[in-house]
């Protein structure tokens, strides 16, 4: 997803890119985390704000609920007070003593409760709406006033009027009953007493209306009584009348008060009803406000969570990209260079650690390229030198080959023609001519041998002689050499003995031709330097021995001690005085020694001047298994070399 959006990001990022690439990795991370922390902080503040608003709304709701509840209570109390007001009024008129008291107290209690509630509501209202008085406060104030009036009426009713009235034995009512009783002691006033009792107890209208008439009749009835007695009774009747009037006045006042109670309580009840409606309305509004605040807070929380997450991912992408992109580019270049493309340079140009690394990397790449170029040049010149050396070796080998051919060709002609003349192909020769052609041919052959030896030596020294290891029979080799040398021994008239030790293995490993060449060289030397006596060839070995030996002993002139070390050197004999007497190139022993060494062997000589010489060649007796093993490695030429 981010990959698809990457070009978009790049476009957005391009102006900021330079900035972010100028920072070190540590600062990049600091910037990233810093931005994230600031965003988180802002998010926290927004959340706190939303929560605060929600709390406020909740508080308003709680308040309005509390007020509504208080108002509801108030409404209830007022209704209750009115109910008991009505009840107590009825009970008062009915003179149901005990129940009236209770009813009166309940009504008063309700009024007091209502006053308390109003007090609370007023406190709440002033709390929530400080200072300016609202409609609600005004209403409350009015309710309060009315309730206080109501309470006042109740109190005066209870304390003054009702207490003043009293019952049959006390108060105004008691006064009335007592006054009538006083009359009854003088004259029969039972009827008046009954009427008074009924009035006091029941507020019976007839009794109330008939009582004054009854008193009038009583007064009339005492007209004819003695004056003193009459005056006394009339006085008593007057007292009863005034008691009656006082009681009646008090009762009228009670009735009036009850009426004014209703007058006060009704509008109060109406006001409370209005207040209740208002509070209910307020509560509904507060409820919906609270729901709104709560939704807003939830949305803010959700949105900020999403925004923070997006910001985190975005920052991680931008900063991670700013870190990883140059590394990836550097890595790509590293692989290119590892692949041998040393001319590659990284273009990472940031100012951070990776940029420094890239610059160091480029410096390193420069060094590598330079070194690589130097190495290539060196390798090239080495290749050229090797090729030159090979070419030189090839030219040398070619030269040797050509020399051999070119030298041999005229000699072949010389020897060939000499042979033809000696064979009589050009007619018969006289003895002198025959002798001279013979000398011609012999010298030609000597020259040919000389050429062969020189070329042989040159080839050995140029290391162009390879030893070819094969399994062969030393017995066959010795017999073969014996056959070849027999003519020579016959010519020289010397005794030639050949001895082969039975302990010598049937088959040995070695270069048969080269060994034959060695033996022939030694034998021809022996014959050359021996005038009389014998030449002895002895091949031997012993069971414990790692080598086998070929000894050639003669009874010839021997070698002087001072010459023992130099006889194996090239051209020695050619340089010496013996050259004149003994024909030969003087290269035979040098070649022999070289060949023996090539086969990891040794050659030694023992000699006594005038008594003869013994040359001993020692060659390693390579066991069949060993050679087979080394043969398996590839070339059969390995003989411990």
């Amino acid at each position, binding site marked *: 997803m981010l990959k698809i959006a990457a070009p978009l990001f790049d476009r957005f990022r391009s102006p900021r890119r330079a900035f972010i690439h100028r920072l070190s990795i540590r600062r990049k991370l600091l910037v990233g985390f810093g931005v994230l922390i600031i965003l988180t902080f802002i998010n926290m503040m927004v959340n706190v704000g939303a929560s605060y608003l929600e709390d406020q709304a909740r508080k308003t709701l709680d308040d309005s609920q509390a007020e509504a509840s208080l108002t509801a209570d108030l409404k209830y109390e007022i209704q209750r007070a009115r109910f008991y007001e009505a009840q107590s009024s009825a009970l008062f008129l009915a003179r149901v003593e005990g129940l009236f008291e209770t009813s009166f107290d309940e009504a008063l209690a309700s009024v007091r409760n209502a006053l308390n509630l109003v007090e609370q509501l007023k406190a709440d209202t002033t709390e929530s709406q400080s200072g300016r008085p609202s409609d609600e406060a005004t209403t409350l104030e009015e309710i309060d006033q009315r309730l206080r009036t109501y309470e006042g009426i109740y109190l005066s009713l209870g304390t003054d009027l009702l207490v003043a009235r009293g019952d049959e034995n006390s108060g105004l009512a008691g006064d009335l009953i007592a006054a009538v009783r006083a009359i009854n002691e003088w004259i029969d006033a039972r009827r008046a007493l009954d009427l008074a009792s009924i009035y006091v107890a029941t507020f019976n209208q007839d009794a109330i209306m008939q009582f004054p008439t009854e008193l009038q009749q009583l007064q009339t009835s005492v007209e004819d009584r003695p004056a003193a007695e009459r005056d006394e009774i009339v006085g008593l009747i007057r007292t009863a009348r005034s008691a009656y009037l006082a009681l009646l006045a008090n009762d009228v006042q009670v009735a009036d008060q009850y009426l004014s109670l209703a007058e006060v309580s009704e509008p109060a009840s109406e006001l409370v009803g209005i207040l209740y409606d208002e509070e209910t309305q307020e509560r509904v509004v507060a409820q919906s406000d609270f729901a709104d605040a709560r939704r807003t807070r939830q949305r803010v929380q959700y949105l900020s969570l999403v925004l923070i997450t997006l910001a985190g991912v975005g920052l991680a992408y931008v900063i991670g990209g700013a870190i990883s992109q140059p590394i990836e580019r550097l890595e790509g270049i590293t692989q290119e260079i590892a692949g041998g493309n040393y001319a590659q340079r990284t273009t990472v140009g940031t100012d951070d650690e990776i940029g420094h690394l890239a610059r160091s990397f480029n410096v390193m790449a420069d060094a590598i390229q330079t070194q690589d170029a130097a190495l290539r040049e060196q390798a090239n010149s080495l290749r050229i030198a090797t090729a030159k050396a090979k070419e030189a070796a090839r030219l040398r080998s070619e030269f040797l*080959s050509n020399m*051999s*051919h070119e030298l*041999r*060709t*005229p*000699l*072949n*002609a010389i*020897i*060939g*023609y000499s*042979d*033809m003349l000696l*064979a009589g*192909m050009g007619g018969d020769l006289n003895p002198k001519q025959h002798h001279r052609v013979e000398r011609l041919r012999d010298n030609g*052959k000597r020259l*040919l*041998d000389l*050429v*062969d*030896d020189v*070329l042989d030596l040159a080839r050995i020294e140029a290391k162009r002689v390879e030893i070819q290891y094969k399994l062969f029979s030393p017995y066959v080799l010795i017999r073969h050499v014996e056959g*070849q040398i027999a003519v020579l021994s016959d010519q020289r008239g010397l005794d030639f003995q050949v001895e082969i030790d039975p302990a010598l293995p049937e088959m040995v490993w070695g270069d048969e031709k080269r060994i034959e*060449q060695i033996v*022939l*060289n030694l034998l021809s030397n022996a014959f050359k330097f021996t005038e009389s006596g014998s030449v002895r060839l002895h091949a031997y070995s012993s069971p414990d021995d790692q080598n086998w030996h070929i000894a050639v002993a003669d009874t010839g002139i021997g070698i002087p001690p001072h010459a023992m070390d130099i006889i194996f050197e090239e051209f020695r004999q050619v340089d010496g005085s013996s050259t004149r007497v003994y024909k030969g190139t003087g290269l035979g022993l040098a070649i022999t020694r070289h060949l023996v060494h090539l086969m990891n062997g040794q050659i030694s000589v023992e000699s006594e001047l005038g008594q003869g010489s013994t040359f001993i060649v020692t060659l390693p007796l390579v066991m069949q298994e060993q050679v087979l093993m080394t043969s398996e490695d590839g070339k059969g030429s390995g003989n411990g070399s």
Partner: protein
Amino acid sequence: MDLNDVSTWMVLVIDDEPDNLDVVADTLDFYGVEVRTASNGEEGLSVLKTFIPDFILLDLSMPRMNGWEMRKLVMEDPQTRHIPVIALTAHAMAGDAERALEVGFHGYITKPIEILSLIDNLRAILERLPEPKVEPKEVEEGGPKA
């Protein structure tokens, strides 16, 4: 051709050295062999168009067409395929003799030629011809020794 009667032999000798060619040709001629000569492979091939010898004595290193190439062409021609080819090799080139036998020469004579034993040597080679492989040491027998 009768191996025992030298006068019935017909031989083509090819060598670029006139003296060497002369020595071989004259020696064979002296013994009564019918000899034709050529100084290189090309010449040799043109001689073969009119003259089918009993065998060919062929020098290996020659200008224009050397012995190796000529032998190949001789073997490819049905007219000349049956003719034995004997190499004339210089002793110095030690590898040449073995290599010649390996590629299919029927035998070899080492230079310098041993005049007196030339006929015997050739006869020895020709006698062994039916056998495919000739032991080099046997052929060399009687040759010059160092």
